[in-house]
């Protein structure tokens, strides 16, 4: 047992190392502008926020729609604290260079981004987590909208730059960075889910009344799940800021939360690997593979393909999503996971079956 676990661990590490080496190699072969890297970067950011949402919706049974708000907090925290002092006068041109006149190292700012989001989540959680299902959803959605309005308010312009862009903060060039940060964060979430606390979350999801009767403090555990989920949403917000190189509050609308929710649903509610796969698929389709649907001048031979023009991609996309929601409610993965141990068991079973066949022959 122990030996096998060790083997699995080594194998997983090898796979991860291989992925990173492959990415580095590809970055040196392919042109920088290749869509593959956009997908890797944006996909890993969405994977993190999707997994963080899944921790709430899928594992704790809290239907929250505040993810965009917490990403906004993370993105702003990162941007505000990392713009180099020399650039502040230019960025905050309408607000006398802003009120913050120092900047933090990138990693400190990323962690701070998570902490700020978590702190707000804690405060918001105190009142709203008492609410049930759809009321909780609409209340968290409401808080996200309130946060967005606050960040666009002129009076806070010295901090947030009002409704203007924040820019000129440090960004990443290589896709290795977001992959690594998201990877570590997702690994931590998985470890949490498999710990005694994660089991308690699942108990709350399955039956709140029974969970409380077995001594699980609902308020405490729900707040914990909500805060931790928001911490990681904040970090993904910081990564998103780095990816986009600019930040503006107007972008973090409820539509963004809906998109993340749909990613979670496609991947399978209650499956981390599902969320990750579906994030990359979702981003790859919307940014890359289905782009041709938006091209009005598509010909197959001399045949002018009808219907294709800007916007068609999103229509196709939403039809696919509705089909999944209606006909295939379990999503890609249901609530199961892809894991090294799982694959090994399957292989072992196949081997055993093959051996049996041989014997019977």
């Amino acid at each position, binding site marked *: 047992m122990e030996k096998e676990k060790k083997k699995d661990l080594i194998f997983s590490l090898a796979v991860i190392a291989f992925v990173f080496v492959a990415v580095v190699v590809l970055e040196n072969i392919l042109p920088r502008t290749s869509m593959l890297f956009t997908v890797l970067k944006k996909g890993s950011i969405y994977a993190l926020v999707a997994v963080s949402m899944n921790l709430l919706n899928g594992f704790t049974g809290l239907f929250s729609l505040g993810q965009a708000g917490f990403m906004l907090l993370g993105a702003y925290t990162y941007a505000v604290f990392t713009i180099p002092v020399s650039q502040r006068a230019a960025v905050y041109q309408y607000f006398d260079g802003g009120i913050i006149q120092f900047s933090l190292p990138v990693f400190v700012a990323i962690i701070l981004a998570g902490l700020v989001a978590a702190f707000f989540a804690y405060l918001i959680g105190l009142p709203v987590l008492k609410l049930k299902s759809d009321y909780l959803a609409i209340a968290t959605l409401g808080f996200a909208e309130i946060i967005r309005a606050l960040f666009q308010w002129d009076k806070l312009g010295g901090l947030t730059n009002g409704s203007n862009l924040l820019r000129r903060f440090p960004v990443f060039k290589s896709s290795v960075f977001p992959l690594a940060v998201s990877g570590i964060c997702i690994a931590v979430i998985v470890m949490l889910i498999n710990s005694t606390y994660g089991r308690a979350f699942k108990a709350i999801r399955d039956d709140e009344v029974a969970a409380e009767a077995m001594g699980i403090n609902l308020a405490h555990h729900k707040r914990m799940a909500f805060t931790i989920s928001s911490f990681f949403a904040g970090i993904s917000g910081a990564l998103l800021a780095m990816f986009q190189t600019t930040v503006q509050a107007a972008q973090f609308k*409820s*539509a963004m939360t809906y998109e993340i929710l749909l990613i979670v649903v496609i991947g399978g*509610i209650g499956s981390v690997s599902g969320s990750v796969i579906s994030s990359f698929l979702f981003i790859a389709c919307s940014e890359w593979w289905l782009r041709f649907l938006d091209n009005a001048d598509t010909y197959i031979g001399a045949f002018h393909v009808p219907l294709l023009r800007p916007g068609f991609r999103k229509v196709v996309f939403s039809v696919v999503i509705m089909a999944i929601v209606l006909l295939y409610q379990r999503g890609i993965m249901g609530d199961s996971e892809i894991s090294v141990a799982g694959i090994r068991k399957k292989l072992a079973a196949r081997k055993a079956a093959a051996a049996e066949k041989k014997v019977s022959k």
Partner: protein
Amino acid sequence: MGFFQTNLPYLLAGISTGGQYALIAIGYTMVYGILRLINFAHGDVFMCAALMVIYSSSYLPLYISIPIAIVATGLLGFAIERVAYKPLRTAPRMSAMISAIGMSYLIQNLALYVTGGLTKYYPPVPFISDSIEIFGAMTKRVTVITPFVTLFLIIVLVSIIKYTKIGIAMRAVSRDFETAQLMGVKINSVISATFVIGSLLAAIGSSLFFSNYTGVTPTVGGMPGLKAFVAAVFGGIGSIPGAVIGAFIIGICENLIKGMGLTTFSDAFTFVLLIVVLMFMPTGLFGEKATDKV
């Protein structure tokens, strides 16, 4: 007098938006009353109604195209229910809500495709889009007409619910879904009727709303939709008078906030109100208390 004078235009606008929200909110509150579902697509139905008027009015005169659009919106509501919610009737509540969000996403993307992402403008409707002057404040006639249209429609609706067979069935279903079904109420037709009525009212609300704010974009329905939902929660979900009162309060407050120069917060205010209501009186003004059985 000074306060009154400066705020009069906002107050008038508030009453008028309130009326328009009320017409949308009824759709939310009726659907929630029966299916316990937040119909996220309802705001998009409202937007579609406007697009239908815009497109049909380029071929047809307005007095034909508006009624056609209203009827078509009713059908749209019916279709949405059949496609997106009926298959999930026995599924967990979360699935139905996700389906509603998916439907909203689909309608918005369809609208985006059709309009090509350009803002379309609502045609000026003769008479109701004309400018008039009240107490020295300039406004459109629609501002004055809206509250009366709203009240008239609500009286009609309440009488339907109170006295007709389908109305009685609706009340029975919203009280107890399963028992009503066992008593032989045709659940599906009741639910369809609810969606059709809600969509018709949203379509009328849409022609009033867009006569005032003429720009139509694919996402324009989102905010009024959410606000109307908040109005429904505020009034006590399932209660029609509650939704109407809630809608007027939200409409007026929102416009007065705009008048104070805090436009950024006019949307956020609605959500602050929502959260306060949910915290301190979760059943709203006229809602009924529900208890969970252990």
